[in-house]
């Protein structure tokens, strides 16, 4: 459960400033992600959610500010430490980023083959099981180009789960999914956290997901270029700190 150990901070972001070339995307970002919580990143399109995720992963170096994993600054680590940390992340990219020359099964199996000592039949079973978890049982021999966008997203999720990571980072896992599958995926994410204690960071603008599974949500404001709302989703909805947060969280109940 998320609040059994309130003090354990998994990720800490301090005064983060993000830019492309010289163009400011977001600044003064300060937040903590506790171990085992489901942390949602919300905000309008283009506000910098995916960019923030790239910074959390370590694919982009901050212009200013620091990112700590268990009190270690991501950019003070040796390159091999950084790589080891990344390997313990389960990442779903916004475009799914499945390796297009491999089948769905191979996309997952290649990780198990390279980074575990499981034998082939065991790997096959794990692959089939992980695909079944996301509702893609029997699709292991399909290529990413032969399935729909929503299915690719789910296969990407299965790949992110392959190595039982310490932290999940999902970029819009339910975007482009029908309500039924979207709900199934939300409950899967919650189950993963509840049963494995994995920390989960989810970029999402689906209100249903945010309210259903989010323990904490931050709202990236594209006008202010910083976080203008942070807290428990329902609290933010009921007591929005400003009009844009209110607009975002109350758009359904007009």
């Amino acid at each position: 459960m998320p609040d059994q150990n309130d003090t354990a901070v998994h990720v800490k972001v301090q005064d983060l400033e993000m830019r492309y070339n010289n163009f400011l995307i977001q600044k003064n970002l300060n937040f903590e992600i506790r171990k085992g919580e489901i942390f949602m990143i919300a905000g309008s399109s283009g506000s910098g959610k995916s960019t923030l995720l790239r910074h959390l992963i370590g694919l982009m170096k901050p212009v200013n500010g620091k990112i700590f994993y268990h009190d270690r600054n991501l950019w003070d680590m040796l390159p091999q430490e950084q790589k080891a940390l990344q390997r313990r992340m389960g990442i779903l990219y916004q475009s799914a980023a499945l390796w297009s020359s491999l089948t769905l099964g191979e996309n997952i199996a290649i990780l198990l083959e390279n980074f575990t000592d499981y034998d082939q039949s065991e790997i096959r079973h794990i692959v089939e099981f992980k695909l079944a978890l996301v509702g893609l049982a029997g699709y292991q021999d399909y290529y990413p180009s032969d399935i729909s966008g929503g299915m690719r997203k789910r296969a990407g999720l299965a790949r992110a789960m392959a190595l039982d990571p310490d932290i999940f980072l999902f970029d819009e896992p339910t975007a482009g999914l029908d309500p039924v599958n979207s709900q199934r995926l939300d409950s899967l994410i919650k189950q993963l956290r509840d049963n494995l204690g994995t920390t989960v960071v989810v970029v999402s603008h689906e209100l249903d997901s945010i309210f259903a599974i989010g323990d904490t949500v931050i709202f990236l404001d594209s006008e202010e270029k910083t976080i203008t709302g942070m807290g428990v989703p329902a609290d933010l909805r009921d007591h929005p700190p400003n009009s844009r947060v209110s607009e975002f969280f109350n758009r359904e109940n007009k």
Partner: protein
Amino acid sequence: MNRNGENKPSGSISWEQLQEDTLSVILKGDWKNPPKTDILADFLKMLKKHFDLRSVTINGSDITSWDTRLVAHLWKIQNLAKQYEVETVLQSFPRGIPRLLNLAETSRGRESAEPESLDETFLSKIGEVSLDVTTETVRMLDFIGALFIGLFNFLRGKARFRVSDVWFFLQDSGANALPIVSLISFLVGVIMAFVGAVQLTQFGAQIYVANLVGIAMTREMGALMTAIIITGRSGAAFAAQLGTMMVNQEIDALKTFGFEPMEYLVLPRFLALTIMLPPLALYADFLGIMGGALVGWAMLDLSFLQYFEQTRSALNPQHFLLGLLKAFIYGALVATAGCMRGLQSGRSASAVGKATTSAVVTGIVFIIVASAVTTYIYTVLGW
């Protein structure tokens, strides 16, 4: 006959200054058929003439019909007024118009992340070019350094890549390239024999066409032509493949899951081309010699037997080996150019196109420079 719209009453616009600081604008009539004046320019003139202007009232009660062109005009007027800190008030317009304007209001554009520099002076261009050259060199050295680390890991048996990929690229860049390599090298042999034949018959030395073609093919042209073909086929394909993977974030995914793109993606392609180019070049050598033999037979009355006998006496294994060494070097360079441009590609479809073009250009430049350097070294060493 009336041409369409010529005599129809068009919409009209009139400007009236009511007081020092207010302007009244009245729109009337059929605005599907707007007046031919430049409304925005007129408005700008007004704004510039009347410094004291604080508010503009636009009245649309007598508009009979309209389309989004009118809304666009009004939107531009509003924006312009805002720049001059003038307030605009819309009065009695058809209901749809203010609504559309409100929609546009909220979706105003933002500055782009990569502002284009507008002042392109000659000096700034020179500065830019020299910066480009520097960063380009750094990026190239970066890539080559990483490639060497990858090769080193491969020799230690520690590189992570799929052996099946090597097989795939061997077949794709080797066997599948045979038809085009056959055609081109045969024709190159024919062309060289033609040129040689015209010159050498003047001295009655037509039999030496065989020497010319044989030595040129084995030492230079076989490897060179093959390398250029492979640049166009495989070098371009490599850049496109890796560029597309860049766009799809597949390369980010490789990195974060613990694979080195240099080992997983570049190594199989690099190995395939360095392994494949020497045999392809050897094959090209023989086809070029066949082309020469055809010309010898058809133009110079040399029998095939005579021609091949002469070729055999002109060539020794060293010629072949020198050519194969070149082919090996070209293979490494073509793979390097293709993969480097692919991994340096931007994250858009057009960037992949650019990467592909750039891979071919870079590959050919690499090949020609390497050809000159190796030929010079061979000459100095007396090979």
